[in-house]
């Protein structure tokens, strides 16, 4: 029982495997696409993917003649990878919104930009 999870975590101990996992956290990819982005051969990528799959960290599906690999969101590492992506996107959007609001405030009320506007309207 416990070994299952130990295996899942142990699979991320290898740096190349971790890199593959991180690439897959950003987007689903095929073996060929992974091999292009890493300094390792296709057979090596396949071997790492097999280990990641056995550990329950990634899942695959057929897309025509290719197999597409993606992070399995049901594991703790998959959930973490998902949340990491989510907050990256969300905070970039938050930054844009804050600065748009700030610019709007400055534009409508240029003399007042440094004051605290928490008072009653």
């Amino acid at each position, binding site marked *: *029982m*416990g070994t*299952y*999870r*130990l295996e899942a*975590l*142990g699979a*991320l*101990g290898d*740096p190349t495997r*971790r890199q593959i*996992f991180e690439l897959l956290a950003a987007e689903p990819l095929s073996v060929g696409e992974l091999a292009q982005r890493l300094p390792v051969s296709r057979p090596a990528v396949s071997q790492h993917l097999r280990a990641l799959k056995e550990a*329950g960290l990634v899942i695959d599906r057929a897309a025509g003649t290719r197999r597409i690999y993606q992070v399995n*969101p*049901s*594991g*703790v*590492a*998959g*959930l*973490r990878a*998902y*949340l*990491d992506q*989510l*907050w*990256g*996107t*969300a*905070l*970039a*959007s*938050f*930054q*844009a*919104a*804050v*600065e748009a*609001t*700030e610019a709007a*405030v400055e534009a409508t009320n240029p003399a007042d930009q*440094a004051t*605290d*506007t*928490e008072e009653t309207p």
Partner: protein
Amino acid sequence: MNTEQTLAAVHRTVTVRATPEKAFTVFTASFASWWPTGYHVNPNGYETAFIEPRVGGRWYERGPDGSECDWGRVLEWDPPRRLKLTWQLDSEYAFDPDPDHASEVDVTFTEEEPGLTRVDLVHCRFEGLAGGQSVADTVGGESGWTAILPHYVEAAAA
């Protein structure tokens, strides 16, 4: 060490050209103005989302038909310095009402210089939510995780 990193809390930082007050207000009162609409769980669709401005307040989304889905709760409300929320959506995107399983989103607003605020977001304790169904079923219960992790950390460090 490396593997610990993979399982460490999610930590994201962004610096915004705004006062902490403004940054806090946009984060909370104007939450829906910046939250990416693709990230929602309501099967009926997404219209808007809210963070209620008080400890114990709800963090939730509302669909076009008025139906609501909870995401979490407000744990700390300390404008304009700090906001702490629970995130209770598990890996199947279902709301897990058990507070013991809740993950935490801690957001701090620090003024770096006048008009410039650093926003640090730390999302942690998500282990309790992971694999709500599948993994937990496979390994026969959730209690294993807490017991196993220290062994793993030890092994990874060796």
